[in-house]
C-alpha cells in the first residue's frame, strides 16, 4: 500500500498530475500525521481547515490544466513568517495575539505555486537558539531517538527545529525555515533532512520577522535534494520591497540535478578540522570526500584562515542587529503590553515579560557592543573580521567550486543538556556560521547515522548565486549516501 506521507514532493506531484491521488487525500493524510505526532510539539498554530479548503481548490485547479509547481502540496511554515490572518508569534510571548494582515513575499510565492499550508511550526524564540528549547510554546522533540536510550528526548536543533522535525516526522512534505547562522542546516542535520540556506539576497525578507537583517535568509527543508530544488525555485526571486534582494533571474534548480559533478573542484577547508571532534563526524566527512572523488570530482585541501574568528564575530554582529530589530516590540502598538506606572516602566515590564532568557541575553550583548565607547572595539572590529572571512571564501573560489564540511559538530543532543551553557550551545553553529557571514549559499544533506542511530549531515558551500552547483553536489551526496532511514516517531 502506498503511504502518502512517505512520498516526496516530486513523487506526489507526478501522482497528482496522473490523477492517481488528490490534494485533498494528500492533505488529509498529513493532517492525520500531524495528529499522530502531536507529542513532538511541532506546531504553534495548525491551519487544517484552511488547508483542506485550499486542497479542494487545488484539485479543481488541476482539472483546469492550469496548476502551479507545488499545486496541492502540504507544507508547513516556520512561525517567523507573517501569513495573512494567522498568528505570527516568532515563538515569543511578546507577539501574543498578533495576526498580520499582510503576507510575506516568500509565502505568497509558495501559495501562488499552489502549496497548501498545514500550519506554523515551532521554533526558537525570534530564531535565537540551536535546540528549539527557547520557544515560549515549549520545546520541540526530535522524532529520532537514540538506539540505546529510546526514552531520552532529543532536541531537533534550531532555530527551524519545528520545520525540520515536521518534515522528518512526515507531518508535512516540506517546510519553510530561516537561517541566520545555521538555523536551517543544523536542524536539517539533526533531523536527517535536506536544508538549504540560499545566497543572501536570493529570497525576499519582506514579511519575515527580523532577527539579524544582514544574515537572515529564508530556505526550504525537505526530505530530498530534488524537493529542495523545487521549493527554492518557487520561493526565490527579486522583490522590490526588500532593498537587499538581488535582481538575478531564478534558474531551474530541478533541471540542474541532471548534471553530474565530474570535473567539479571540491575544497576541503583545513580549518574545519576541530580538535576533539567526534570520530563519526570525521568519518562521514571522509566518506563525502571519497564519494566526490569516485564521481570524478577533483578534491583538494583549501585554507580559510579566518574561520576561527567566525563564531565570535557572529555573536557580536547578530545580537547587535537583533537588539535593534527587536526594539519595535515595546508594547505600544501590537502584541503584549504589561502596564506600568509610567511609560518607562511599561517598556520595562513588557520587554522583561515578553522576551525569554536567550532573547534578553542577546539584546543585552547587542546593546553593549553597539554602545558608545565599545562600538569600535566590538561591532566595527567584527565587521572588519567579517570582511576577512568573506575574503577567505573569495580566495578559495580561485581554486575550487564547492566546499565540503560537516554541518554540525555532533548529532542531536539531549533536551536540557546545553540550555544553561550558552557557549556550548553556540558551538553548534561552528560549521554553518562562516558561510552565513559571507552571505554564501550552503546546503546540508543527511549522509549517515551516528553510533547512537542519529542522523548526521554534510554541508556544501558554493559561490554566491551558484545554488545550481550546490544542488548538483548535494544530489551526488544523496545518491552516494543512499540515506533511507526513517525516525521512530514518524507518522
Amino acid at each position, binding site marked *: 500500500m502506498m503511504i502518502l506521507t512517505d512520498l516526496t514532493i516530486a513523487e506526489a506531484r507526478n501522482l497528482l498530475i496522473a490523477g492517481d491521488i488528490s490534494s485533498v487525500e494528500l492533505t488529509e493524510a498529513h493532517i492525520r500525521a500531524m495528529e499522530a505526532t502531536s507529542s513532538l510539539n511541532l506546531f504553534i498554530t495548525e491551519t487544517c481547515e484552511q488547508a483542506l479548503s485550499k486542497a479542494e481548490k487545488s484539485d479543481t485547479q488541476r482539472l483546469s490544466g492550469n496548476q502551479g509547481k507545488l499545486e496541492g502540496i502540504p507544507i508547513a511554515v516556520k512561525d517567523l513568517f507573517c501569513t495573512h490572518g494567522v498568528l505570527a508569534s516568532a515563538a515569543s510571548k511578546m507577539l501574543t495575539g498578533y495576526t498580520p494582515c499582510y503576507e510575506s513575499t516568500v509565502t505568497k510565492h509558495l501559495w501562488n505555486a499552489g502549496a497548501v499550508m498545514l500550519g506554523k511550526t515551532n521554533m526558537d524564540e525570534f530564531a535565537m537558539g540551536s535546540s528549539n528549547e527557547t520557544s515560549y510554546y515549549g520545546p520541540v522533540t526530535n522524532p529520532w531517538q537514540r538506539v540505546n536510550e529510546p526514552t531520552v528526548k532529543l532536541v531537533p536543533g534550531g532555530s527551524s527545529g519545528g520545520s525540520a522535525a515536521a518534515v522528518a516526522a512526515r507531518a508535512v512534505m516540506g517546510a519553510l525555515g530561516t537561517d541566520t547562522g545555521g538555523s536551517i542546516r543544523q536542524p536539517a542535520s539533526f533531523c536527517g533532512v535536506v536544508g538549504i540556506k540560499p545566497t543572501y539576497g536570493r529570497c525576499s525578507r519582506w514579511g519575515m520577522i527580523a532577527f539579524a537583517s544582514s544574515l537572515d535568509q529564508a530556505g526550504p527543508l525537505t526530505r530530498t535534494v530534488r524537493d529542495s530544488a523545487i521549493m527554492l525555485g518557487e520561493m526565490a526571486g527579486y522583490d522590490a520591497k526588500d532593498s*537587499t534582494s538581488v535582481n538575478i533571474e531564478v534558474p531551474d534548480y530541478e533541471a540542474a540535478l541532471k548534471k553530474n559533478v565530474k570535473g567539479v573542484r571540491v575544497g576541503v577547508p583545513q580549518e574545519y578540522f576541530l580538535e576533539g571532534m567526534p570520530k563519526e563526524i570525521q568519518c562521514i566527512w571522509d566518506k563525502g570526500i571519497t564519494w566526490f572523488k569516485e564521481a570524478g570530482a577533483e578534491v583538494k585541501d583549501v585554507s580559510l584562515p579566518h574561520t576561527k574568528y567566525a563564531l565570535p564575530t557572529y555573536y557580536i554582529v547578530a545580537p547587535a*542587529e537583533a537588539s535593534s530589530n527587536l526594539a519595535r516590540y515595546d508594547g505600544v502598538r501590537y502584541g503584549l503590553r504589561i502596564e506600568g506606572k509610567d511609560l518607562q516602566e511599561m517598556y520595562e515590564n513588557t520587554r522583561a515579560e515578553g522576551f525569554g532568557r536567550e532573547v534578553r541575553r542577546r539584546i543585552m550583548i547587542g546593546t553593549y557592543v553597539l*554602545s558608545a565607547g565599545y562600538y569600535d572595539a566590538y561591532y566595527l572590529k567584527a565587521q572588519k573580521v567579517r570582511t576577512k572571512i568573506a575574503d577567505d571564501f573569495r580566495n578559495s573560489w580561485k581554486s575550487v567550486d564547492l566546499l565540503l564540511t560537516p554541518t554540525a559538530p555532533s548529532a542531536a543532543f539531549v533536551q536540557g543538556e546545553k540550555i544553561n551553557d550558552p557557549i556550548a550551545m553556540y558551538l553548534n553553529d561552528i560549521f554553518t556560521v562562516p558561510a552565513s557571514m559571507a552571505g554564501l549559499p550552503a546546503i546540508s544533506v543527511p549522509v549517515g547515522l551516528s553510533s547512537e542511530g542519529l542522523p548526521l549531515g554534510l554541508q556544501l558551500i558554493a559561490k554566491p548565486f551558484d545554488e545550481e552547483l550546490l544542488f548538483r553536489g548535494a544530489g551526488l551526496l544523496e545518491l552516494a549516501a543512499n540515506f533511507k532511514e526513517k525516525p521512530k516517531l514518524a507518522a
Partner: protein
Amino acid sequence: MAELLKGTKGDWEVVIGLEVHAQVIAGSKLFSGATAEFGAEPNAQVSFVDAAMPGMLPVLNEESVRQAVRTGLAVNAIINLRSVFARKNYFYPDLPQGYQISQYELPIVGEGAVEIDLPDGGAKTIRVERLHLEQDAGKSIHDLHPTKSYIDLNRSGVTLMEIVSKPDMRSADEAVAYIAKLRSILRYIDACDGNMQNGSMRADVNVSVRNPGDKLGTRCEIKNVNSLRFVRQAINFEAHRQIEILENGGLIDQETRLYDPDRNETRLMRSKEDAHDYRYFPDPDLLPLDLEQAYVDELKAGLPELPDARKKRFVDDYGLSVYDASVLVAERDTGDYFDSVAKSRDAKQVANWITGELFGHLKKDGLSIKKSPVSAEKLGGLIDLISSSTISGRTAKEVFEKMWQTGNDAKEIVESEGLSQITDAGEIEIIVNKVILENPKNADEVRGGNSKAIGWFVGQVMQATAGKADPKAVNELLRDKLKA
C-alpha cells in the same frame, strides 16, 4: 558684523550654530509609499512600514534622494557619491521602529556655504557642515485623556533633510537671516515648502557665549524652534541666561533646552548626564547609497536660477539697488513676476509698483503673488500707459485699484472710464487761461512773489479736467502765464 551683548562686567559675543530640519517635497515618505501631506486625520497616512510591523523593510524613495542632492547643489556643497543610512536607536512611543533611520558618518551632502544678507546691506558667508536625510518621528498627543497618551503616526517616516551649519553666526539677526535664506533657496528649488507653522521647517539652535576672541564656550541646544520670531527670542534669552551665569562665576552645563514662547524663556529638557546613547550603526536593511557623477551633474544642470544669482542679475542688468533686488528675489514667484514685467520697461518703476502698490494689496487681502488679480502682464499694461503719458501716475493708482477689484486690463478701464490724460497743450491752455481769468486775486498773489500759491492753481486746473490734464504741462503753462 559682530554684535556684542552687554553684560554687567563687559561685552560678550554670542556664537550660534543651527540644525535646520526641512520636510522634503517627495510625494511619499523616505522609506515607504505612504503620502506625507499635512493635515490628514490622525493615522490616516501610515503604512505597515511606518508602523514598524514585524517583517517590514524600508525601501528608499528616489525622489527624496534627488531633492537632497539638488539642495546640496543649491547650497554649493559637495555631494557624497557614497552615503550610508544608519540606525539611531532609542525608545520613544512615537518612534515605532525603536530607531530612526538617519545618516550618520557618511551623509549624502558634505560641506557647503550659504550667503546671508545683513540688515546693513552687507553679506556674510555661513558655512554648511553637512546635509543628511532622515525619517521624522510620529507625534504624541497628551491632552485627549487624563491618563493616556495617543499616538499619531502620520509624520512617522516623513523625509527630513537636516542641514547643519558651522557655528558661524554671531547674532540672532544673522541666525534669522540664515534660516530665511535657506528657506528661500529650498522654495526656489521646490525641495521644501518652508512652512514653519506646519512644521515643514524647524530649527535646533545651538547657542554659546564667550568673551570676544576667546575659544568656543559650552553650548546649549534649543530644540525644535518653529518660527523666525521664536528663533530670535530664544537666542536672545539664552545668550543672556548664559552671560548671567558666567558673570556670577558659574559654569554652563551642556544640555538640551526647550523654548517656551508663552513665557519667553528656555527650560531644561535633558542634561548631558542623561543624554542618549543612540548606538548608531549602518542599517543592515539598506545598502549604501551610491550615486553616479552624471546623475549629480544632470541635477545641477536642471536647477533653476537661485536667489543670489538672480539678485546679482537684477542689480547688474536692471540697475536695481541691492535692497530692492533682495526684496524682489526672496520669493521665486516674485522674482519671476518682476522679470516678466521688467522686460523692456523701466525696471526701477516696475520695482516700485511691485514693492509698493502690489505688495500692499497682496498683504491687505492675504494673497500670494500667484493669486494676484493683477497679473504681471496686466501690471505691464498699466505701466505702459504711464510711460506713454496716457495716464498720470496718480490716475494710475486709481486704475490699479480698479484692476484689483475687477481683474480688467488697464487699457479697458482707462478707455471705458475716459481717464486718458489731456496732453494737447492747446486744450490745456484754454482751461489754464479760464482759471486765471476767474481768479484774479490769486493770480496777483503769485505774481507778487508767493510762488507756493501756484499749487492752488494746479489743483484748480486738475479739478476742472477731472484729473486728466498732464500735471507737468499744467505746471509749465501756469508758471509761464503767472510770471511776475
